[in-house]
């Protein structure tokens, strides 16, 4: 609000009148009937009025700032599509990162939109409600600007054309899908702890900054622009994350152990989810930005360190198993790419063996692990491929019941042994990739026995039968030979060469 009236009141008072003061204590219906989701998680809120508004944005300023951002953003989209901007990317392999983004991340933005709409109605405190509502429309913005950013690329490249359909079905997309649905089906306080705090505050920099800088280094103007533009909303979201955690912890000491359990769960779940980003950074970007290990150090170990120190005074300790992430950062991207390479017939993007130069970069970034463990493997696969025996794995892997990643990640204390845990619940055996995932199961078994595990579903015949070609082609809508398989010799590569001659 820029009018002079506002000068008589400072920002805080003005905002109080514009938001807090709009609410009232109902008397015709009971608080618990109006806000039925507020109690069941066991979180005790003594006084909503203690809530600190993270940003004091009124709708008029919201519209003004957001409209300015949107104008700038769509001007770039228009320019890119009018000028065949897709031809400016460094290397056609780069587009595979974009395919991964729209199929795995964009649908999460949509889930965030819906989740924040729910909480933006359900919280009893008006300040928190409105902060959630603004985030909700921001997340809708992210969904839609991403769809529009990729719209042009979708016209020229495969793997993006059926992203919502794939998100609901394809085996590796059940990793992000189950992650977010886990949060969305939780109560409002856990949802905010999971998404606003653990994901947005602690981990979002690891998702967006690598993708965006990756796009910048590889000539992808649309992604850089929507990424930074979305990220400018993120500063608001991050602050909501920190405020909600402090608020819950300050409200009642009984909340501390509940929140601690959520932090343990959601850091681990987020870490597992981000292995896909690690693989994207280390293997899918032709021009590299930084390694996954470096990003983890900078954005989790350093920034997260300051954060958890801040929360110490509430009785919060750093998340359980955090030390395993520090070991895992040197392995996870390699192991993940190895999985996708083997199952490259069932991916909506192309896969390949890193070039010699790329392998040298990996050796340099991962001096303790790459040459010892991963280079030999990739060199062997490269040899086979050169002989016309490109390796595809036709067996179905065992998936972790929680994170749904194939069991292919090694033990924290033995990097030559696949980590595998299991447990029996009501006569049924469940498998896990790690102690972290098994812990999560043990805390809420009734929830996780419900998981829709892609491999189980295929075996049970729920994905169009036993014929994998049919599962991939008809059920997943991955177009055989177009969207999937090896990059070398792919239609993507062939078209790119033709187009390059044309420009």
């Amino acid at each position, binding site marked *: 609000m820029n009018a002079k009236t506002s000068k008589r009141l400072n*920002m805080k008072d003005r905002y109080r009148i514009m938001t807090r003061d709009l609410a009232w204590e109902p008397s015709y219906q009971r608080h618990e009937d109006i806000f039925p989701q507020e109690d069941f998680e066991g979180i005790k809120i003594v006084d909503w009025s203690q809530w600190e508004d993270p940003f004091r944005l009124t709708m008029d300023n919201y519209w003004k700032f957001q409209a300015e951002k949107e104008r700038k953003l769509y001007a770039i989209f228009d320019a890119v599509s009018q000028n065949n901007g897709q031809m400016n990317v460094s290397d056609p392999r780069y587009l595979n990162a974009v395919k991964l983004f729209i199929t795995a991340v964009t649908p999460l933005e949509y889930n965030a939109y819906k989740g924040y709409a729910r909480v933006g109605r359900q919280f009893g405190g008006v300040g928190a409600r409105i902060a959630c509502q603004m985030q909700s429309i921001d997340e809708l913005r992210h969904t839609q600007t991403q769809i529009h950013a990729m719209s042009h690329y979708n016209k020229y490249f495969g793997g993006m054309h059926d992203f919502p359909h794939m998100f609901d079905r394809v085996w590796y997309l059940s990793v992000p899908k189950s992650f977010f649905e886990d949060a969305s089906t939780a109560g409002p306080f856990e949802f905010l702890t999971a998404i606003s705090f653990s994901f947005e505050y602690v981990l979002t920099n690891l998702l967006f900054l690598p993708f965006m800088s990756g796009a910048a280094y590889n000539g992808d103007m649309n992604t850089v622009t929507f990424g*930074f533009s979305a990220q*400018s909303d993120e500063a608001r979201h991050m602050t909501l994350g*920190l405020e909600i955690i402090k608020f819950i912890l300050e409200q009642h000491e009984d909340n501390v152990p509940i929140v601690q359990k959520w932090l343990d769960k959601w850091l681990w779940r987020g870490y597992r989810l981000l292995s896909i980003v690690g693989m994207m950074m280390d293997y899918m970007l032709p021009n590299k930005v930084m390694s996954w290990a470096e990003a983890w150090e900078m954005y989790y170990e350093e920034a997260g360190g300051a954060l958890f120190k801040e929360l110490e005074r509430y009785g919060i300790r750093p998340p359980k198993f955090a030390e395993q992430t520090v070991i895992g950062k040197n392995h996870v991207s390699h192991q993940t790419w190895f999985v996708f390479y083997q199952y490259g017939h069932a991916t909506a993007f192309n896969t390949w063996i890193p070039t010699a130069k790329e392998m040298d970069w990996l050796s340099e970034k991962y001096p303790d692990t790459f040459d010892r463990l991963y280079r030999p493997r990739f060199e062997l696969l490269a040899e086979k491929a050169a002989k016309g025996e490109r390796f595809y794995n036709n067996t179905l892997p065992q998936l972790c019941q929680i994170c749904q990643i194939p069991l292919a990640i090694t033990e924290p204390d033995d990097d030559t042994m696949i980590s595998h845990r299991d447990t029996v619940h009501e006569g049924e055996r469940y498998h896990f990739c790690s102690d972290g995932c098994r812990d999560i199961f043990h805390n809420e078994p009734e929830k996780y026995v419900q998981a829709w595990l892609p491999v189980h579903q295929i075996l049970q015949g729920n994905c169009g039968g036993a014929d994998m070609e049919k599962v991939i082609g008809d059920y997943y809508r991955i177009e055989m030979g177009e969207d999937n398989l090896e990059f070398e010799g792919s239609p993507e590569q062939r078209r790119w060469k033709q187009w390059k001659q044309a420009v």
Partner: protein
Amino acid sequence: MSRVFIALQDNENSRFIVEAISEDNPNAEVKHSPAMIRIEADDRLTIYRETVEEKLGRDWDTQELQIDMISIGGNVDEDDDSFTLYWNS
């Protein structure tokens, strides 16, 4: 002691904001990377409206920061005259 930080999109506007931040926070460290400027400091960092207005040569609302700000680390305290990031610990 912990580090607070703010990251801004690298554009015309941000350059003036960064100048203002450096002037008011002499021990802030400015790091440039493609398309992004990151400013870090120990425990506390404050952006003053007056200084930014001086640099920009126009009126500036502290909330305008939201257009260019892409990431932050620290608690936020915002009012009409300043925007502060801080850690308590």
